[in-house]
């Protein structure tokens, strides 16, 4: 033990004696370890950390996949049937997708997010209220007395953590509601949505017997112990076949059953990105370790004689290795400590780059788990970079020979640098691809003019505006007031806004053109639609390319015009004049006359192909949805000012209505948050890789020059000009730089395939990123080598040959 302490003290002294070496090594490590820890803390919650439910590996999401919904769902009637007949699950549960807004209507009313769940929800997920109880099956019926569980956060913020709140009645949406329990602090919805209150979904199971529209549910279940997902899938299949009989035959082909783990459902689309980020940052760490290993190697070469003396004095090889490892572990720990700070700063940076870049980003932080990881990484890298130099045998024969042997060709060091270069080429290529893809994504034609547009989302509380009539009245009044504000060029109201998804939608085959037989096979895909006011097209800058836009007269009682998007027009009327044609959406709907064709607008997010789309006037319609409206203002004025006016005007109509204001450019930008996050991070890591590789190269070339000083002197005495010497050194550097670059090329050929799912309109075989990566790296390598190589030119042969 005391000898270990001696090793530590000696190690610290060695580090203190070589401040430049120590500084470079520690900073390199801090960068590598810090970046790794930051990325780990981000992806940990996606890839590794267990979900906050006991035995989370038993939890699954199940349901049907169909074109009308991006995620699996269950129709209520099927669900009720499956629930009584299923065998693979210990229990099943559902909730209503999206939850609901609800207002806490006491003094200082606030808008909350309510989750509407089945009574089996908490037991299925294994969640225990920390106070009170779950609601019962009886309380989860229509017209039962209203009850609610409140989340920990709301309990602390609104009720000051007062235990007496359980059993109290609070007012939700103007109705007295009994608080029956408080949820634990780590509670989260399986869909990760923000939640303040959990209330019964109160599904009217009796009403399902009829033929009315059924609610769509999100279904989850806990597997019986020992049952696998595949087995549960097989067990559900007969039930699914039966449910399929209720689906119109022509659609059956487009529906499928799905059972997948809860984690898979939560993170499916960020898993690839998470692994890629983790892989890249580990590559950076590897480069950092190779750098430090290289520095240490250079130093041990300088310390050969000391080691030889120690060995001659009787130090066992194990003892010498331990001494060396102690030093590198010390370096690792110091690097790791500073790395924590680097990680902390990087996390802040990540969040500022793209707050919605990756799920749970806001929750990422340096908790114990991450710190333990950091410690582990520091120690492992300490061993990793310490091993190579430590394993070098002290050459006792050095002592007997006259001059110190300088035959060590530093082959290991050159291999290390070549590998660093290879890794950097791979990282750079990946970063190049993602950047190229991001660039394409950000330049996707939106089909509208997003500049100078302010948008406001205005949701009305259902209990205050119970039906379309009240809702429309509110928005009509708002429109009347806003329209005449000075400085507003155009103003529109609509139920949804491009370019994100979330239009209303219908299936193509429901659409009937007058004088044509209804289409026979399949759904024909989805068609999006929006109800919009006449100002909508102007406000968003959507061009009307044929016919006309909407007019105020279109909002009259018996007016049923329709405007088609260009793509939809091509699909419906490929070779016909569309204007004046009649069509209807479903057999009960009124016939509508095509009055205009609008330019295509991106409507499924930036990356996914757009759906065909049509517009109907913003006015009462049986299928219309008016509880939430999007107000769009085109204005050259400062968005802040406009936002203030908007809030004032809305508040003067109803102060309880919350308004979410964003400029259109902000909304569009958010849509590329994830690709931007990935691209910026990978670029950052590639940059780190290149810088580290350059430092490594600098060090190795410097070492090479000093190691070969004598040889250089001899060569000069034999007639070599300084240029010839420089050529020799640079030629040597070029050889292993090229070897590394070639290795990197081969590596990236395979590595980029992993990126495929993250790329938008860019092929992994796109040559530009690779070429740019190579060019950048070679320039960096050349510069890094040039400076120390020039020292070789200035070797003074007399000095070099002096010590004979």
């Amino acid at each position, binding site marked *: 033990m005391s000898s270990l302490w001696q090793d530590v003290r000696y190690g610290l002294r060695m580090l203190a004696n070589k401040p430049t070496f120590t500084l470079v090594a520690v900073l390199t490590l801090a960068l590598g370890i810090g970046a790794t820890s930051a990325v780990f803390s981000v992806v940990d919650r996606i890839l590794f950390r267990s979900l906050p439910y006991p035995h989370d590996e038993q939890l699954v999401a199940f349901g049907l996949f169909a074109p009308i919904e991006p995620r699996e769902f269950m129709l209520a009637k099927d669900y009720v049937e499956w629930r009584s007949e299923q065998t693979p699950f210990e229990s099943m549960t559902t909730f209503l997708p999206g939850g609901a807004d609800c207002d806490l209507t006491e003094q200082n009313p606030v808008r909350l997010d309510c989750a509407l769940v089945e009574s089996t929800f908490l037991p299925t997920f294994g969640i225990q209220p920390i106070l009170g109880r779950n609601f019962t099956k009886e309380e989860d019926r229509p017209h039962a007395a209203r009850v609610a569980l409140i989340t920990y956060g709301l309990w602390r913020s609104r009720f000051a953590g007062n235990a007496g709140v359980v059993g109290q009645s609070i007012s939700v949406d103007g109705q007295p509601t009994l608080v029956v329990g408080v949820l634990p602090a780590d509670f989260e919805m399986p869909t990760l949505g923000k939640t303040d209150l959990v209330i019964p979904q109160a599904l009217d199971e009796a009403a399902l017997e009829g033929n009315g529209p059924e609610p769509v549910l999100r279904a989850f279940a806990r597997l019986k112990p020992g049952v696998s997902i595949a087995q549960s899938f097989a067990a559900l299949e007969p039930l699914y076949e039966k449910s399929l009989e209720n689906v119109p035959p022509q659609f059956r082909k487009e529906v499928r059953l799905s059972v997948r783990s809860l984690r898979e459902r939560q993170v499916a689309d960020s898993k690839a990105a998470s692994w890629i980020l983790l892989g890249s940052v580990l590559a950076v760490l590897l480069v950092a370790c190779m750098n430090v290993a290289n520095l240490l190697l250079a130093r041990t070469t300088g310390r050969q004689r000391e080691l030889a003396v120690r060995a001659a004095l009787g130090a066992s090889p194990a003892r010498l290795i331990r001494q060396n490892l102690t030093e590198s572990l010390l370096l690792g720990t110091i690097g790791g400590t500073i790395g924590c700070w680097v990680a902390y700063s990087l996390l802040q940076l990540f969040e500022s780059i793209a707050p919605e870049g990756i799920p749970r980003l806001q929750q990422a932080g340096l908790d114990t788990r991450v710190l333990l990881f950091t410690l582990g990484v520091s120690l492992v890298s300490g061993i990793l970079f310490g091993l190579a130099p430590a394993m070098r045998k002290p050459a006792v024969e050095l002592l007997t020979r006259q*001059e110190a042997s*300088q*035959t060590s*060709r530093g082959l290991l060091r050159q291999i290390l640098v070549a590998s660093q270069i290879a890794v950097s080429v791979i990282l750079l290529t990946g970063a190049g691809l993602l950047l190229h893809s991001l660039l394409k994504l950000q330049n996707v034609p939106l089909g509208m003019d997003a500049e100078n547009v302010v948008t406001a989302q205005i949701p009305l509380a259902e209990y205050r505006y119970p039906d379309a009539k009240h809702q429309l009245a509110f928005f009509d009044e708002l429109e009347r007031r806003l329209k005449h504000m000075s400085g507003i060029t155009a103003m529109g109201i609509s139920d949804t806004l491009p370019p994100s998804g979330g239009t209303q939608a219908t299936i193509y085959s429901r659409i009937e053109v007058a004088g044509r037989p209804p289409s026979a096979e399949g759904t024909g895909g989805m068609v999006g639609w929006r109800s919009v006011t006449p100002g909508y097209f102007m406000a968003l800058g959507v061009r009307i390319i044929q016919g006309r836009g909407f007019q105020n007269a279109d909002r009259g009682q018996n007016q049923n015009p329709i405007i088609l998007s260009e793509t939809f027009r091509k699909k419906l009327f490929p070779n016909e004049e569309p204007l004046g044609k009649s069509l209807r959406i479903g057999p009960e709907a009124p016939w509508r006359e095509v009055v205009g064709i609008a330019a295509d607008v991106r409507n499924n997010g930036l990356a996914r192909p757009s759906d065909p789309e049509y517009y109907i006037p913003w006015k009462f319609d049986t299928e219309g949805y008016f509880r939430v409206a999007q107000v769009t203002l085109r204005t050259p004025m400062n968005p802040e000012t406009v936002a203030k006016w908007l809030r004032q005007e809305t508040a003067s109509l109803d102060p309880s209505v919350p308004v979410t204001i964003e400029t259109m450019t902000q909304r569009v930008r958010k849509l590329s948050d994830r690709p931007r996050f990935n691209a910026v991070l990978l670029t950052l890591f590639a940059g780190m890789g290149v810088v580290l590789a350059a430092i490594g190269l600098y060090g190795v070339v410097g070492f090479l020059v000093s190691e070969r000083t*004598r*040889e250089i*002197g*001899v*060569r*000069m*005495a*034999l*007639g*070599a*000009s300084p240029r*010839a010497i420089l050529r020799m050194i640079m030629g040597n550097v070029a050889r292993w730089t090229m070897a590394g670059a070639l290795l990197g090329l081969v590596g990236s050929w395979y590595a980029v395939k992993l990126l495929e799912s993250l790329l938008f309109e860019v092929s992994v075989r796109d040559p530009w990123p690779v070429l740019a990566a190579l060019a950048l790296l070679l320039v960096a390598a050349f510069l890094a080598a040039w400076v120390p190589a020039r020292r070789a030119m200035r070797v003074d*042969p*007399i000095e070099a*040959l002096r010590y*004979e």
Partner: protein
Amino acid sequence: MEPLIQMRNLEKVYEAGGSKFYVLRRISLDIQPGEFVTFMGPSGAGKSTLLSIIGMLDGSWTGEYYFNGEPVHRLNVKKRNELHKANIGFVFQSYHLIDNLTVFENLEIPLSYKNVPHKERVSLVCDILDRFNIVGKKDLFPNQLSGGQQQLVGVARAVIQSPKLILADEPTGNLHSAQGEEIMELFRKLNEAGTSIIQVTHSERNAAYSHRVIQLKDGWVVSETSNAARVV
């Protein structure tokens, strides 16, 4: 006949911390083509320094130095290097062969710096291997040779480009006497074939091979003795 080397008032100074330290003082000497000259003197006398100046490795001195009629003191670095490359071969006390090159490759080095074409290079190296009787060693690395053999290669490397002048700084310093003698015999033969030689040595026996011994002390030339037995 024009002297091969002509020096007038050559001086070399080291400046350390403001104080000047003369290593060579007012050196004036003439060396004729075909001469074999020895520099002797106590340690620190400036022998090696003078040798590097003659060999044009060192350019920081004052005075006049004509090599083969060329005013070295007026040449720029590049010209000086050219002159050195074309006319001078070095032999070192500790051989200074390059460790990771074979004997053959070591011999090739000076030729490569004179841009001798590959074919000619090979034939020159083969010639010299033959002349020095080391053909069998051509693929060995320096650490596989004895000290005497290494110095043999060192000398071969110095003469391969047929220099006018060979400079040897204690060429036998690391060798035992039999090996040393072998090298000295070699020098004598080279000298008889017309190559001028300047050596530094501490050994009277080695000095006896030369025509003239120049004694240096504290940077001054203190005496010159012609070797009666070997006057040109």
